[in-house]
């Protein structure tokens, strides 16, 4: 549902308000954004290059079994979604989520001239650049830069981690990274730092010193806001005990306590499975699925699932054919997952990977990842994707 439909359904927009006089616009914009504040995006990054073919298994395709003699998932173990694709058995926790219509799988997402370096490809995904273009701002950072009504403060975008990913850095605005709101609050409220900021009038310039003070002031006020808003909220929901689940639990706490944050960013690493992939990837997929399932159910029980969109990506998929060490090497196109309470297209979004038409042993991409970003920017974050992605991308109809 887009914003206008949402408003129409809530009866907020009176007839004829499309023609409001220009001087009324800012008020209208504010009201609209106040409402859409509660639409959250959660980005989940799987670092290392998750092997998509052993995640969403094309068990209906013989080529898969021919190319993966020792690491293919047996048909009887696959959690079947249709007669071609199914989930890795370690993802059993997600079956219920899938059956409820809260999950969409997008196959074969990639970009032209793919790069197989972790670093470069992660950069490309985080900045939304072409493969031969070097950007120093991230796609969410540029969304913050766009200066929409609701992206004025660093807490508009929160990464639950110690340091901030490139994705979250814009030219003039950046998100905020924190693992523990109480720790950041204590740190920024250290008596010495408070003294440094007291009565500071001199540093409102645009120069580098002004920038440092501005960052410090914003960090302090964000930390106070986040801590004071979220500290009262107690989650009654039980999460599995993993670092990843903890990150999601923190996000859920922020969302449920009504924080005016629009984008959250979390990550899970260790997917670079060159050797003995089965056990390693299985463990990670289990952590991922159990964490996500708890998160989605928690949001549902708090009536927040309809206002939340979760998207999962990895910097690349892996080669179709396994290697000699019962692992897989760096590849190209990969699947993405979308979760939410209001998905327009639920289940499997597009055709399964074509394993007979490869590019040098790698999957060809069907969809550019920036079409997925573009869809989210246009339909969920209510900005024009061309302004953020430097060119306009066609949107998809999963939301």
């Amino acid at each position: 549902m887009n914003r206008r439909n949402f408003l129409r359904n809530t009866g907020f927009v009176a007839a004829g308000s499309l023609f409001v006089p220009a001087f009324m616009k800012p008020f209208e914009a504010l009201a609209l954004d106040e409402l859409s504040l509660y639409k959250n995006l959660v980005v989940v990054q799987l670092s290392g290059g998750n092997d998509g073919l052993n995640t969403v298994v094309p068990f209906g395709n013989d080529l898969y079994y021919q190319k993966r003699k020792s690491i293919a998932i047996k048909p009887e173990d696959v959690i079947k979604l249709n007669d071609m694709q199914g989930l890795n058995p370690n993802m059993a926790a997600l079956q219920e989520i899938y059956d409820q219509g809260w999950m969409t799988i997008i196959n074969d997402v990639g970009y032209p001239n793919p790069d197989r370096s972790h670093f470069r490809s992660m950069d490309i995904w985080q900045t939304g650049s072409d493969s031969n273009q070097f950007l120093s701002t991230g796609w969410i950072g540029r969304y913050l830069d766009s200066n929409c009504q609701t992206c004025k403060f660093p807490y508009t975008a929160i990464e639950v981690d110690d340091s901030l990913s490139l994705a979250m850095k814009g030219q003039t605005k950046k998100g905020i990274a924190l693992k523990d709101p109480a720790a950041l609050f204590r740190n920024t409220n250290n008596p010495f730092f408070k003294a440094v900021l007291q009565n500071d009038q001199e540093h409102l310039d645009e120069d580098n010193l002004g920038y440092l003070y501005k960052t410090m002031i914003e960090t302090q006020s964000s930390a106070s806001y986040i801590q004071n808003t979220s500290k009262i909220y107690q989650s009654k929901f039980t999460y599995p005990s993993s670092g990843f689940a903890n990150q999601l639990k923190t996000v859920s706490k922020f969302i449920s306590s009504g924080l005016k944050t629009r984008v959250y960013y979390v990550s899970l690493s260790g997917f670079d499975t060159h050797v003995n992939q089965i056990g390693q990837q299985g463990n990670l997929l289990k952590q991922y699925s159990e964490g996500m399932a708890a998160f989605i159910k928690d949001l549902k029980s708090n009536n927040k699932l309809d206002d939340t969109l979760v998207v999962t990506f990895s910097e690349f998929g892996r080669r179709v054919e396994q290697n000699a060490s019962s692992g897989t090497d760096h590849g190209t196109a990969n699947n993405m997952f979308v979760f939410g309470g209001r998905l327009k297209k639920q289940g499997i979004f597009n055709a399964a990977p074509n394993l007979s038409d490869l590019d040098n042993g790698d999957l060809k991409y069907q969809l550019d990842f920036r079409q997925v970003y573009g869809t989210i920017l246009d339909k969920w974050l209510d900005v024009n994707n061309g302004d953020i992605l430097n060119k306009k991308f066609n949107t998809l109809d999963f939301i």
Partner: protein
Amino acid sequence: MNAKDNSLRVKHLYNRAGFGISYADLHKLSRKNTEKIVAGLLKETKDDPITLVSDTESRRQMLVQAGLYTKKNLSDEEKKIRQEIIRMQNEVSKDLNIAWIDKMINTTSPLREKMTLFWHGHFACRSNEPLYAQQLNNIQRTYGLGNFKTLLMEVSKSPAMLQYLNNQQNRKGKPNENFARELMELFTLGRGKYTENDIKESARSFTGWMYDKDGTFIFRQNLHDDGTKTFFGKTGNFDGENIIDLILAKPDTAEFIARKVYKFFVNDQPNEVHVKELGDHFYAANYDISALIKKMFTSEWFYSAENVGTKIKSPIEFLVGLSREFYVTYNKPQILIQLQSSLGQYLFNPPNVAGWPGGQNWIDSSSLMLRMRIPSLVLNDGEIDFSGKADPEDEAVIALNKNATANANNAKPKSYVNANADWSKFLSTFPKGTSPLELTAFLLQPKLNDKIIKMVSDNKGLRSTAVEITSMPEYQLV
């Protein structure tokens, strides 16, 4: 000029050309003129390469690795050997990182190390093979103040760069354009000064530039495309060296390097008049890097107010400067890697071939708060519960080492800075009776405002003043 004004100039020069200066050294130099001091900075530099990574051991490993690479089915024993080599490379890469930052902290040739740091960001490169990384670092150190042509040629022929920019795969009939593109876009001319066809044709010229199994540059005639190429409108049977000559013949290259040097040493916002002046001088001096550096540090504009105390320190400048200033020893040097990574400048691991973007990009909420906490942690040996992010290139190792238990990833141990500052040595460099305010004026580059003066005026001890001052936003500027 009086000694006091001159010492402000000398302090600025040493902050930018090196990693700061002690109060005692500053006092000694405060009556010398700029020309003499700059000449001294350029002269003191002896070439002192890093020799941590052993040549013979690395080459032995590479041969073993190359052998395993070609095999189809590895035995368990062979798999173990391969994993062990990866583990050791990773370990040695970390040691190399520490060896270099330690060198910067302790060097008596600060300009040479600063210049190496500049070229490290300019010719940004990553290599999993620590021997190659060390080689490239030494090239940047040895030739960093010499002639740019020699430097460029050596970098272009280094295994690290040949590997990183895929020239190893650049063969006659199957050109790989990666190196040719970055050579012009990032290393010499800058965007818009060449055509796509120039890239294609120069890529052909670099075919056959490779390194052999044990990591030595080799020109493979049989893989080289010796046909006719047209580059910058000239036609000939060009090879890689000809292409580099043609690129250097363009004054645009001199100006591009001059702008980058200016942004690194003078100001993030280049003054185009000054850049042009430097570029012309560099070109006329036939790409002598020392001539460019001398011109910059002896220009009056280098000392003007808009260029003093206005630049955001890079994380390395911050860490090295603080460590030099207070004679810090790190009992657990690995912490330096963690800090580099958390602050966003992990040496030998630039984000991509364009290097670190620098300037305000260094600062976000978390990196700024960490920077302002580090002095109290380092100087007062505190605890830090900052665990940093896994480097994507470490993923293979994480995956290898990861315990089968689902929770292994979270059990990161708490890390301690565990460092000692030599306070008595630091304090002994100041004359008796130095006041907290005088110390503050020495430690900070930006002009002191009323707020800071008021804050330190009640202070009694120099030590607590130093910790406070280095924990301020002003200390992030140089």
